[in-house]
């Protein structure tokens, strides 16, 4: 296999650039990734383990860190499915039907990407804060949304809002509606058509959307920071825990927790790779 290094994946003559070009592309690509992804990752890991494995373990198994981990997983476990359902509905409406104003809706779906994370948190403060639109009513009924888990979930949902939909819309438009029509003509109900025909066809795109959404949901800092209240062991997510540790001059522990986050994200990616690999070899 090593003989094939740097050769093009396709062996047709006349199309493929000479080895030297492939070499240049590889060097540039790897160099770019090295500078922007691998080096940062190495730094994170180096700092995380700079004081030894046991301290790393101590940092991530500390009570507050565990609570933060639990909260992070909980938030992701709510935000991802919620956006998943939305992504499916939106891509069904936007990709399988032709109607006016589609571009506008797609732009609105993109919008949360363009909102500064701080503002993403702030908007919920403006809604549910003591002086916000619904604040007084909530206070009267003793309901807490911001500075509690619901607020964190909402902010996370907001910042991860576009991922699934963005991933699915082009994919579903590409696939057209032929198979759905066939299913209907065979007597399937709308729901059966969706579940048995549409869903299996988009499962890879869906998985990808979920992974990106999940990575961002677990990694989100700015928006969550505004609505969290930073209550130790209660409303601190992992990224906030990283900040707390950093701010109290506990550098190693901060990076240990950060490495845990990077690890979580890589685990989901590895899972995807495994599933992909398995289904290819079936």
């Amino acid at each position, binding site marked *: 296999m090593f003989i094939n290094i740097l050769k093009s994946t396709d062996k047709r003559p006349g199309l493929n650039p000479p080895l030297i070009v492939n070499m240049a592309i590889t060097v540039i690509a790897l160099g770019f990734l090295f500078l922007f992804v691998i080096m940062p990752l190495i730094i994170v890991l180096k700092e995380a383990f700079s004081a030894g494995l046991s301290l790393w373990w101590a940092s991530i198994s500390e009570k507050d860190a565990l609570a933060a981990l639990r909260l992070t997983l909980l938030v992701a476990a709510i935000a991802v499915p919620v956006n998943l359902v939305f992504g499916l509905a939106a891509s069904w409406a936007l990709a399988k039907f032709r109607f006016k104003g589609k571009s506008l809706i797609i732009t609105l779906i993109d919008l949360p990407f363009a909102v500064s994370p701080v503002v993403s948190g702030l908007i919920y403060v403006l809604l549910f804060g*003591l*002086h916000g639109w619904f604040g007084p009513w909530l*206070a009267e009924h003793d309901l807490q949304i911001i500075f509690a888990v619901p607020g964190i979930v909402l902010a996370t949902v907001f910042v991860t809002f576009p991922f699934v939909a963005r991933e699915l819309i082009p994919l579903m438009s590409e696939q057209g509606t032929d198979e759905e029509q066939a299913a209907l003509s065979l007597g399937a109900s709308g729901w059966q058509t969706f579940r048995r025909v549409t869903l299996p066809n988009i499962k890879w795109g869906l998985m990808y959307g979920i992974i990106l959404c999940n990575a961002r949901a677990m990694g989100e800092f700015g928006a969550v920071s505004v609505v969290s*209240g930073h209550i130790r062991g209660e409303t601190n997510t992992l990224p906030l825990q990283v900040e707390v540790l950093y*701010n*109290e001059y506990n550098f190693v522990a901060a990076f240990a927790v950060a490495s845990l986050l990077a690890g979580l994200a890589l685990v989901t990616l590895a899972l995807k790779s495994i599933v992909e690999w398995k289904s290819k070899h079936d």
Partner: protein
Amino acid sequence: ETDEILNVSYDPTRELYRDYNELFAQYWEKETGRKVNIRQSHGGSGKQARAVIDGLKADVVTLALAYDIDEISAQSKLIPPNWQQNLPRNSSPYTSTIVFLVRKGNPKGIKDWNDLIKPGVEVITPNPKTSGGARWNYLAAWGYVLNRELGDLKKINNPENAAEVNAAEKKAQEFIAELYKHVPVLDSGARGATTTFAQRGIGDVLLAWENEAFLSINQLGADKFDIVVPPISILAEPPVAVVDKVVDKRGTRKIAEAYLKYLYSPEAQRLAARHFYRPAYPEKADPADIARFAKTKLFTIDEVFGGWRKAQKAHFFDGGIFDRIYQPGYK
């Protein structure tokens, strides 16, 4: 059956309050036989104040500057305006001051504020618009100039010296402008500035709270840095207050008040000193700890600036003196 209160505090007090909460819990159980669970929140002082204003249900706040509690009081009426009189020493059970953290051996020979504007000296201090700590740095420098020009800070509040004070303030403004010309990076927070100085190796001197300077040395290596305490500096008074409306609603007033009051107890004072805060009553703390704090002349916000709100308005609001340093002619 446990009582529960939420203490909303600012950033690097986590270790202090972790120990204190334990201490208080023992005390409280001994006093009343009841267990107490103290929930703890840490973040930027201003951000924490805003959270309380926007509905974070804090029973007590222990923040970095009185201004932030003033704002809670002003904007949400959760705390009465005269809150600072509820506890001794301006409601500040522990204090600190602004010191210089320099590189080992103090190669640039920085001893006093004036040395900061020597050619070639780079100063690291965060952005006062975003960092409460940075405001203390700024105001300490300002106070230094007034003291130098007037000789006696008491003149400030005497209307007879208005002209003299005015001239001194001009000088102060020039000094501050010059000082910030020596600042290569404006980090958004104190912690970021410390990192810039200590880990990025940028600058010759870091303006920092005394307790944080100690923390940095402990964390980052005593062989790398020295602490220089200038002959005069500001008395940083991190205040504490009970959030009346919240404790009344939650029925936690008694324990919240006890929580803050106990901060003045010998045990708590000793704890504060151990965590590098200057205790309000030094005599109650361990002398070995007290010995770590260099003797220096300290002035207060009230003396020089007439309180936080005034200082904030004149210096840090949009169009204030700080903005004019970067945008001459800005209104």
